[in-house]
């Protein structure tokens, strides 16, 4: 039986670099480079850097 085709996009988790545990989930194309952006972290009430976390091996 043929394997199920991989989807073109993946859901990724962008973690706040303020170390608050706050994160945002985004969808990006699988072949795209990892996402990073400056977004608001409500725990420290500031705009901080969010970086994409490495995907876990399953």
């Amino acid at each position, binding site marked *: 039986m043929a394997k199920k085709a991989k989807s073109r996009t993946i859901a990724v988790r962008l*973690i706040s*670099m*303020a*170390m*608050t545990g706050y994160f945002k989930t985004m969808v990006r194309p699988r072949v795209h*480079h*990892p*996402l*990073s*952006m*400056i977004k608001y972290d409500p*725990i*420290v009430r*500031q705009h*901080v*850097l969010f*970086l*994409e*976390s*490495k995907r876990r091996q399953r």
Partner: protein
Amino acid sequence: MTSPSRSTFISLAHTLPPRLLRFFARYPPGTHTDVRSNPFKPTVHAITKRWHNPIFSYRRQAVLCKIARQHGVEELLPPSRKSSAYKEEKLAQRAEGGVGRWKRMLEPKGKKWERTLHARLEKRKKAMEEMPALIEKWKRSGHGRGWKEWPR
């Protein structure tokens, strides 16, 4: 100090109330001080392993201790929870923060978030101090294009 004679003890004993005299007749001072023969302690039956109440209830122990205290012969009684020595010991233990279970009650372990709160706040504070430099570095690297240090 010369040791008082036997007759002194006998005359002193006659000043004690009959209730104490009866007790000392049955349990002479200095005997019955170990846990098994102490009439103030509960005992476990050797064969049936059942616990039996002390011969003297706490109420009667308290009365005996009080009378003995008034006549200055409290230390001649077997060890009791109602003795002033025991109470002073307990008070001292409580003053220094208790022992065993009582101490744990006074100093609870706390929830995990309570125990780790300080460390997490420190980590967050340190990260926020480094944030402007990190953002500057990120901007210079082409907004993440050449970024290497991705978090786990």
